[in-house]
């Protein structure tokens, strides 16, 4: 018979830090923590020392120097005389644009492909299987390069559109010209533009404000109309026919405003080397969006399929037994439950897409990686600063996307009452 001495009666000895189970884990954690911190400190110190030895200082002042290079695609006004900071912002906005458009399109493609892959139609489901497997299993960079090669080698050059006997013809009533540099599309123009409206000190395009106000007003009326129709249905058991009022609500103000402002399309025309007049959608952007969409869409399709399959067959059968048809069954029974499974991995896919957009330089699209991490880094020689800044920006961007998607996840999560 051994008698265990109650631990609290023992006086504390130094050896207990190793031999006493209560303290051992604390000891290990402390040692590891100190080790990690020392390693980090050594890395930082070593970096500073070596940079100093190379005659390089650590400073972000280069951001306020003149950039001196042009950026082919910019959402805000930018010229070569602006600062590196502004070039970085131009790049960041381009990254955000391509990521946002990519995420939206990838979700649409992914949901469609995922649902269709479960279709009872043999041909459709097999086609979706082929799509998913091909895009999922080939590296994204290769897809980007393949699509770029198709765009540059197959599409005609702008000058092929020249002359009476041109090698290429514009499509869609002579309004759209796909070329190996960009796709020239018509531009919206306003003839009798109202003056700019000043909102919070910044002038905003008056026509844009008018359209926005008309749309919001139409939407509010439409909501009220729907409520009224539902109330009427609840009271009388008959739903009044309102669809034509809804259509008129949106169409009439739009047509009126278009006539009032004289909104029309300006088709692109070939002048000199390139198309002018319209909007030139850069191929780099189109190729990047296309590749990111198709690649990420394949992953999302699998996530959606897994989500739908995770809802047991009994749920569908129960819904059918209650007399629900196929579409309400999907919308009211299956999807709400599937979303619980779909949303968390979907967040990862959005993050992946955003980070993968840094492959943009392969197609010459000026994203953050190409401006701040490319030309700016090279011209200033500030590798360390530019890399750290870029890592910080991508980190913040990813955390923001995560945060927003987690909010959404909290909303669709199974509510246990």
């Amino acid at each position, binding site marked *: 018979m051994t008698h265990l001495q109650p631990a609290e009666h023992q006086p504390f000895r130094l050896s207990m830090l190793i031999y006493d189970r209560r303290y051992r884990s604390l000891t290990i954690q402390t040692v590891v923590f100190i080790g990690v911190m020392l390693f980090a400190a050594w*890395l930082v110190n*070593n*970096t500073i*020392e*070596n*940079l100093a*030895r*190379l*005659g*390089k200082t650590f400073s972000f002042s280069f951001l306020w120097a003149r950039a*001196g*290079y*042009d*950026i*082919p695609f910019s959402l805000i006004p930018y*010229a*070569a*005389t602006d600062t590196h900071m502004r070039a970085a912002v131009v790049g960041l906005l381009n990254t955000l644009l391509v990521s946002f458009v990519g995420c939206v399109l990838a979700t649409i493609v992914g949901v469609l492909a995922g649902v269709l892959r479960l279709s009872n139609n043999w041909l459709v489901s097999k086609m979706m299987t082929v799509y998913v497997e091909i895009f999922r299993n080939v590296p994204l*960079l290769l897809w980007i390069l393949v699509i770029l090669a198709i765009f*540059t*080698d197959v599409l005609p*050059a702008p*000058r092929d559109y020249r002359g009476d006997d041109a090698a290429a013809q514009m499509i869609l009533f002579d309004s759209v010209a796909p070329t*190996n*540099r960009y796709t020239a599309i018509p531009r919206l123009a306003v003839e009798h533009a109202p003056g700019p409206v000043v909102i919070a000190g910044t002038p905003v395009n008056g026509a844009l404000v008018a359209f926005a106000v008309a749309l919001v007003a139409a939407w509010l009326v439409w909501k009220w109309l729907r409520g009224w129709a539902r109330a009427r249905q609840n009271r009388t058991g008959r739903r009044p026919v309102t669809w034509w009022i809804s259509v008129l609500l949106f169409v009439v103000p739009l047509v009126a405003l278009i006539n009032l402002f004289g909104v029309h399309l300006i088709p692109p025309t070939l*002048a*000199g*080397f*390139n198309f*002018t007049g319209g909007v030139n959608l850069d*191929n780099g952007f189109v190729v990047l969006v296309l590749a990111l969409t198709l690649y990420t869409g394949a992953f999302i399709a699998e996530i959606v399929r897994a989500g739908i399959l995770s809802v047991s067959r009994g749920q569908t059968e129960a819904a059918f037994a209650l007399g629900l048809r196929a579409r309400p069954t999907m919308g009211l029974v299956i999807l709400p439950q599937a979303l619980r499974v779909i949303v968390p991995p979907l967040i990862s896919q959005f993050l992946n897409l955003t980070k993968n957009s*840094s*492959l*943009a*330089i*392969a197609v*010459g699209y*000026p994203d953050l*990686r*190409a401006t701040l*991490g*490319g*030309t700016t*880094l*090279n*011209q*200033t*020689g500030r*590798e*360390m600063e530019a*890399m750290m800044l870029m890592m910080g920006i991508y980190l913040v961007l990813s955390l923001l996307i995560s945060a927003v998607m987690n909010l959404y996840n909290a909303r669709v999560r199974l509510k246990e009452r």
Partner: protein
Amino acid sequence: MTKTVFLGAVAAAAAVLLSTGAQAAEGDTLRAVKQRGELICGVNPGLVGFAAPDANGNWSGFDISLCRAIAAAVVGDANKVRFVPTTGQTRFTALSSGEVDVLTRNSTASFQRDTELALDFPAVNYYDGQGFMVRKDLGVTSAKELDGATICIQTGTTTELNLADWFRANNIAYQPVNIDSNAEGEQQYLAGACDAYTTDASGLAATRAAFADPENHIILPEIISKEPLAPAVRHGDNNWGDIVRQTLFALIAAEEYGVTSANLEELSKSSTNPEVQRLLGATDNLGGMMGLDAEWAKRAIAAGGNYGEVFAATIGEQTPIGLARGLNALWTQGGLMYATPFR
């Protein structure tokens, strides 16, 4: 491509992090190269005439010859060289992190690179300027007619900045297409994704020489910048910079005094010109002043001939690239090539 560049930059950053010292202290590069028994040169990944590997992986070209000459002078064997291909984006990082000993990669010497990037350009080995290449059937005869044109440009180069400056100064518009390497630029230009391709005029000539139909492309007469191409070394190790400079000067001086790879042996014994005697190590020990032996220059010249021979063999008028000597002729023939006296 992108990934490689990115990883390269990260790897270089990591190399800066992890290498403990020995970066550019006096005499360190020479000691490291001698110990290794091999010279590591950063070179262009592929620019015919300047630096390009053949089907068997043997590198040749104008910049390669300089690298081999330095190796012959320092290690004693022109073949004890390792070539590290670097893009416009990775080259200076590769040099300053110590990945390469010297950059012989048609790089433009400029103020900012000399000072802020902490590099040294010991001497210019090719005086160049930026030009434009277009298809002949475009009907363009001057760069000033390029208003509204789409122009392919290698990112991370001085040409990128010159282009922006020149077009703004002339008040004409253009659309840049950023590309990562000469090969990519060639492909985009040939596919018609850009109207004009711009880089150093020598690079244009070299690129055009590799086309299937070089006669259908012209290089426009405008030269919009000064591009003194020079080997680069790190700041701080002045002795190593001296070796690179004097090796290049030895090649230039050899041409000036008529020393060729053919008459080298004979002249080293029989020449009565005291400058040639000192250069080839027959009298005095100039090499000893920078940590080499007396015959360093002799080996450097033996590696590929004097400056004129190297020029003629790699990019001269008899080669497909067909560049005239122009500014790169000796000072005695109206050019800028001038070596300081060997004494």
